C-alpha cells in the first residue's frame, strides 16, 4: 500500500504546479523506496527506462521544418485562406477537422496529423482567423479547443483500425486468458463510441461559436 504514495506525490505535485520533471522524479523515488529499493537502485531503474523510451522524443525532429515554414509565412497563409471563406466559423472549421482526423485515424493514419505539425501551424491559426476579432481570453480558448479537437479525433478514431497498438494489446491479453477474439470484432465495436464522440464533441464545437464574445473592431 505504501507504494501508492508515489501516486499521491504526482497528484499533489501537479496540483500545486511544481515543475513536473521534478515531481516525476520525486514520485519515482517515493514509490521505489516504499517498495524496498535503495535510492541508487531507483535512479538506475529510472535511467534505464528513460534511455529505452527515447523514441518518445523523436517526434521533435519535425520542429525545424515547421519553424522554417512559419518563418516563411505558413501561419499567415493559413489565416488568409480562412479569411476568404465567409461561412467559416471556428466551430465549423474544428468540426470539419474532427471528422477528417477521426476518419484518417480509423484508416490507421494516426501520424499524418498532430499537435506540432498540424495544430500549431495550421488548425489553430485557421480557427482564430475565422473567429477574429478575439479578446485575449477567447483567443486562448480557441487555441485550447483546437488542441482538444485533435486529441479527441485521434482517440475516438484509431481503435477502428485493425492493427493499432491498443487493439493488438487487447487481442494479446485475451489470448493469454484463453479467449480468442478477432481484431475485426474489436474494431467494429469501437464504431458506436466513435460516432457518439463525433456527435458530442461536434455539438460542443458548434455551441462554442456562440460563447465567443463579439469584440469591437475599432478598438483603436
Amino acid at each position, binding site marked *: 500500500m505504501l507504494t501508492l504514495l508515489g501516486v499521491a506525490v504526482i497528484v499533489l505535485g501537479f496540483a500545486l504546479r*511544481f515543475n*513536473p520533471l*521534478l515531481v516525476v522524479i520525486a514520485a519515482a523515488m517515493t514509490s521505489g523506496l516504499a517498495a524496498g529499493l535503495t535510492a541508487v537502485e531507483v*535512479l538506475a531503474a529510472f535511467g534505464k527506462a528513460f534511455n529505452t523510451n527515447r523514441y518518445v522524443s523523436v517526434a521533435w525532429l519535425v520542429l*525545424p521544418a515547421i*519553424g522554417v515554414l512559419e518563418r*516563411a509565412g505558413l501561419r499567415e497563409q493559413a489565416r488568409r485562406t480562412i479569411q476568404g471563406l465567409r461561412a467559416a466559423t471556428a466551430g465549423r472549421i474544428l468540426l470539419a477537422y474532427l471528422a477528417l482526423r477521426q476518419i484518417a485515424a480509423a484508416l490507421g493514419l494516426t*501520424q499524418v496529423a498532430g499537435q506540432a505539425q498540424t495544430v500549431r501551424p495550421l488548425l489553430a491559426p485557421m480557427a482564430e482567423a475565422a473567429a477574429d476579432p478575439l479578446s485575449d481570453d477567447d483567443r486562448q480558448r480557441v487555441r485550447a479547443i483546437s*488542441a482538444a479537437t485533435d486529441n479527441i479525433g485521434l482517440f475516438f478514431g484509431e481503435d477502428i483500425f485493425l492493427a493499432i497498438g491498443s487493439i493488438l494489446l487487447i487481442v494479446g491479453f485475451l489470448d493469454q486468458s484463453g479467449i480468442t477474439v478477432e481484431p475485426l470484432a474489436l474494431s467494429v465495436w469501437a464504431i458506436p463510441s466513435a460516432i457518439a464522440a463525433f456527435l458530442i464533441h461536434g455539438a460542443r464545437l458548434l455551441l462554442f461559436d456562440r460563447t465567443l464574445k463579439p469584440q469591437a473592431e475599432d478598438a483603436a
Partner: protein
Amino acid sequence: MIGLPLVYLLSGVMFAAFAGLSLADRENPKRLGNAAFWGLFALSFLAGDHLGDLGNGVLALALAVIAGAGQLGVGVPKTTSPDQRESLAARYGARLFVPALVIPVLVLAGSLVFKRLTLHGTPLVDPKQATLISLALAALVAAVLAQVMFRQPPASAVQEGRRLMDLVGWAALLPQMLAALGAVFALAGVGKTIGELAVMITPADSRFAAVAAYCLGMAVFTIMMGNAFAAFPVMTGGIALPLVIGRFGGDPAVVCAIGMLSGFCGTLLTPLAANFNLVPAALLQLKDRYAVIRAQAPTAVLMLIVNVILMNALAFHA
C-alpha cells in the same frame, strides 16, 4: 539495416545544435541553462547506450534539476517580423502548404514501402520502426524543401527549430520522463495495488454496477497512471474477466473494445498524458498549463457515461 540508432543520431545532432546556438545566444540571460539542458538531451541521444543505467538516471535527474531551478529561458533567435510574414504569405500563397503536406505523405509512403524493401535478403529498414524512421525522413525532407522553395537562410532550420523548442521548454521532456516513471511504478507494483483496491470495492451483485465499475475503473486508473495501456490488463483481469464477462456473460470483444475507449476518456483528463495535454499548451503558448484538459473535460465525461451505456446495451446478447 537502418534502424533506431540512425534516428537517435539525427535527434542527438539536432539537440546538440540547439545547445550550441543557445550557448552563443547572448540575448538570452539563461543561455547557460538552455545550453546545458539541450546539451544533456543531445548526450542522451548520442551516447545513452554507453552511459549505464545509473548514468542515465543521473542525466535525467540533472535535466529535472535544471528545469526545476528555473534555469531554462526562451531564446529569441532573429526571425521574420509579422509584416514580413504577411508579405511572404502573399507572395508564396498556397505553395506554403506543400512542404507541410509532404510530411504526412512521406510518413504514409514510408510506413508502407519501407517494410518491403530488402537488400540481399535482409530488410533495408527495421520493419518494427518503419513509421518512426519515415517520420524522421519526412521531417528532414520537409525542412530542406521549405528552405529551398522559400529561399530561407541556411541556418534557419536549426534556428527556427530552436525557437520552437525553447517555447516548449521542459514540457518537451515530460512524455519520456513519464514513460520512465511508468516503468518504476511497474517495478514497485503500484498498478497491481491499485487494481486490487479497485476489485475490492467493486460491487459484484448487479450487472450494471459491474459494467460501470469497469469503465470508471479504466478511466480513473488511466488518470492516475497517464496511460490506458497500463490500466487495461489490471482492470480487465480484475473486473471485466471475472465479473462482466465471467459472471454476467458479456461479449469479450464488446467489453474490451469499449473498456479501452473508457480508458481513453481518462487520458483526456490527466496531465500525466503530457504529450497530448501539456505539450500542446506549451506549443500554443497558453497561459494555463491545464487549458487543453479543461477544454476536453466535458467531452471526456460525457463519453465515459456513453461508454457505460453502450457497453451495458451491446455486450449482453441473450
